[in-house]
């Protein structure tokens, strides 16, 4: 009884789907007809057709191997302008006592007064202006003051993370890390990504930089889910002939790099 009912039910649904399918196919066919015949627009050979040349990629300039202009920085306050306030001078270093030093009662009262020079300085100094937390100190507004040679251990927020036995490459050769980052950024051609994609998950690519500086073993470590984005990221590395030889006083034969690509149109 129940089985019969199920069979009938399925027949019913199949018939309705067929109707929908038919309607949809007709609609698609109609649309194609409309697009191709009734509106013969500018959908020919894109490049080379007269008049179509106006839609040019201004982004191209950043793709030629030149340092591109700053695109994005983690510092929300970063811009080209210097900050409006001047940095305060560093506080005088406070003499620290050894933790295991035992105070001698007689000597405590005889501690030296602070040097006279610092006292006079303090008098002539103008009243320090209270700085709001969000103010940018003078001259430190731009991305220039970003970490250069210091790194975030987790690799989060675009820092550099290291694992491994002799893993001090990043701190010793910060300039080389910077070269790698710059070179890959320059060689990533965003137009290779499917134009329908607005934004995507971060894609992680790993590769080795060999002794003579050429990249090898390029692999997608974690896919973005967008094949064309994964491929453009891989190609960005493969397009590079060399990053320049590894520092001559660096002992190992290669250094491994994990590089991520954030895509946003």
């Amino acid at each position, binding site marked *: 009884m129940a089985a019969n009912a199920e069979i009938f039910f399925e027949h019913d649904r199949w018939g309705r789907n067929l109707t929908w399918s038919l309607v949809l196919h007709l609609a698609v066919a109609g649309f194609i007809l409309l697009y191709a015949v009734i509106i013969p627009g500018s959908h020919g050979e894109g490049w080379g057709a007269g008049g*179509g*040349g106006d839609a040019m*990629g201004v982004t*191209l300039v950043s793709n030629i191997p030149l340092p591109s202009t700053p695109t994005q920085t983690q510092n929300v306050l970063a811009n080209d302008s210097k900050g409006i306030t001047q940095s305060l001078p560093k506080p005088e270093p406070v003499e620290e006592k050894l933790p295991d030093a035992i105070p001698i009662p007689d000597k405590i009262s005889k501690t030296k007064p602070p040097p006279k020079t610092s006292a006079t300085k303090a008098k002539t100094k103008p009243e320090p202006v209270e700085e709001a937390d969000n103010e940018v100190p003078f001259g430190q507004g731009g991305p220039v*003051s970003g970490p250069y040679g210091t790194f975030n251990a987790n690799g989060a927020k675009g820092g550099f993370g290291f694992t491994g*036995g*002799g893993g001090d490459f990043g701190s010793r050769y910060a*300039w080389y890390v910077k070269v790698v980052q710059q070179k890959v950024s320059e060689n990533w051609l965003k137009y290779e990504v499917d134009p329908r994609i607005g934004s995507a998950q971060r894609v992680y690519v790993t590769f080795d930089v060999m002794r003579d500086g050429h990249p090898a073993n390029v692999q997608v470590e974690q896919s973005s889910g967008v094949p064309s984005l994964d491929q453009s990221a891989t190609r960005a590395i493969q397009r590079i002939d060399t*990053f320049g030889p590894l520092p001559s006083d660096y002992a190992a034969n290669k250094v491994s790099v994990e590089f991520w690509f954030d895509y946003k149109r």
Partner: protein
Amino acid sequence: MMMRFLKLLLPLILVTSAFAQDWIKTGTGLGVEKVRLAVPDFNPAGQDPKNAELLKVFNETLWNDLDNAGIFDMVSKSFYPLGQVGTPADVKFESWSSAPPSAAMLAFGNLGASGNGMTVQGWLYDVKNVTSPQVLGKQYQDAATSDAARLTAHKFADEIIFRLGGGIAGIAESKIYFVSTRSGHKEVWAMDYDGANQHTVTHLNSISLSPRVSPDGSRIAFSSMTKGGWEILMYSLDLNRLVSFPRFGGTNLSPAWSSDGTKLAFSSSRSGDSEIYVVDSSGANLKRITSFKGPDVSPAWNRKTGAQIAWVSGRTGLPQVYTMEGDGTNVQRLTDQGYAVSPAWSPNGQFLVVSWMRKYGPGAPGAQDIYIMDIASKQWVQLTHDGGRNDFPYWSPDGRHIIFQSSRAGSLQIWTMLADGTNQKQLTFAGSNTQPNWSWK
């Protein structure tokens, strides 16, 4: 949950593993900016009277080389802390890395002349990395002349650019060949990349055009008016004289070297119509690779692959730029309109640079400007704007610069610019100077 736990555990496992394996983790969108580089004047080492003059040349050349490289943000000298920096002991890291210089890198050193010799010591320091700051340390010895001081500065600048520019050799030691009328005839001339040291190469008392230096820098091929008409001539820079090269008959113009130096492409009208031919660099194995109605001229090889040739064809009337494989197959048109000439392929094979009048004809206010085209995406970018007629662009070996001729200064002169169109500078001033060609390294 299990995966997350494993992920947390993984770094610990890697840290404790015995492999001496380094990892760099980095990404895009981190704000790629130019490296801020401070270059205080080099110090005199010793009391030799020649020091001052040599130092002036050296410091000026070094600064200009680094400034022209296009990859540095040069820190203005007025920001520098007081005191001389001649040796590593003089470097006060804090005063260089903090504002106002806020330098990331510091190039410094000293120069000392003694007798006829000169010794230059130079260092490059990462001043934000106090524990191991040295990126580069170099010592040069040469004669105590201003030419040697200039060359040493070029060498040191190239070392810095090579390290910080990602393994692309600097161009400070490269040469530019061009055509000049200064002697009364159009002869082939040569100069340093910055316009210094201009001198003549050929003395043919004829008309010589489109010099092209071979990839190894030993020979120059150019077209010249001979008794039998326009022929390709070959000049050896090692022997300083013409070497033999076959005469093909007809009008032979615009030779172009393949990137391996074994072949030459040029245009010849020996069959009546101007077509592209390929010949071995020895002159043997002449092969015709185009057969279209209308003129085919100005071939340029793909410098990366050596497999494609871009050239100018007039088959549709006005000249347009096309590409094809080295055997003449797979012809593709790149420019859609106007008047496009002088293609040159970038060293990485990704771009063509051409001289293009987008609108051409009566009533069309055409300006001849330099454009870059991306071969793969077929996008283009205009590099020069409203400044005379700009023609004969050519790439620098590092792919960061373009040299071209322009009439914007009144007469035809040679100009250079960064490959994004910025930083345009005039290099020649006397006479009329045209058709520049940059050496391959």
